[in-house]
């Protein structure tokens, strides 16, 4: 298993380069291109959620990211210093399609749809954590009408 750990400052500059860092690491794997894009998207959405909604773009707060590439599973854990949400509220946000034409509010839904399992919890230091697990390998495209 390969495991990567990052601690980013909660700055806009770090936010702007974070996706590029995650992409470069994911692109070093031998995972197929479509699957790599999904993994990038999961981490991107979790980081953006932590930056904008968890830390509320507070530069004094940090964001930690763990990416694990196992033989059969990818795991991403993103931790922020925000107040956090209950798992039920998080799931509720993912299920919401109330306003299809809103310009925001799709990130958590994307994470849930692309993950096999999502957990939210506080770690031993009180940081709010979102953990996404996705089994690797050939699988059909998701279609939802």
């Amino acid at each position, binding site marked *: 298993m390969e495991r990567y750990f990052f601690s980013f400052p909660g700055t806009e500059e770090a936010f702007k380069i974070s996706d590029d860092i995650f992409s470069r690491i994911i692109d070093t794997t031998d995972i197929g291109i*479509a699957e790599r894009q999904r993994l990038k998207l999961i981490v991107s959405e979790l980081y953006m959620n932590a930056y904008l909604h968890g830390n509320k773009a507070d530069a004094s707060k940090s964001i930690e990211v763990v990416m694990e590439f196992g033989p059969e599973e990818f795991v991403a854990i993103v931790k922020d210093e925000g107040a956090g949400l209950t798992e039920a509220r998080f799931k509720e946000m993912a299920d919401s399609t109330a306003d299809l034409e*809103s310009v925001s509010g799709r990130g958590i839904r994307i994470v849930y749809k692309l993950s096999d399992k999502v957990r939210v919890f506080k770690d031993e230091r009180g940081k709010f954590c979102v953990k996404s697990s996705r089994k690797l390998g050939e699988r059909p495209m998701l279609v939802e009408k």
Partner: protein
Amino acid sequence: MEITTKINGDVAVINLEGRLDLNSSNQLKDASREFFSKDNCKLVLNMDRVDFINSSGLGALVSILKEVRNHKGELKISNLAEYVKEIFDITQLSSIFDICEDESHALNSF
């Protein structure tokens, strides 16, 4: 993100290349504003070379769609990679965008 535009008759075709995310969404909106701010505009966004899109990029597309509608125009999206189309599907945006297989289908569908 690289953005190039061309005019085909009365249709503006905007070719996108690279990542469509929070960093590039304003760039896209700025580049397409001169086209979608005209009444009855006809716009094609060719996403053949978009290799990544996230929720911010989707938000930018929804924002452009609303502007186009406000000006009684039409917007088509074409050449979505399979995994990009998947994101449109899981967010149910496939139901509000007119998605065409390729640019020529998009141009012929106005």
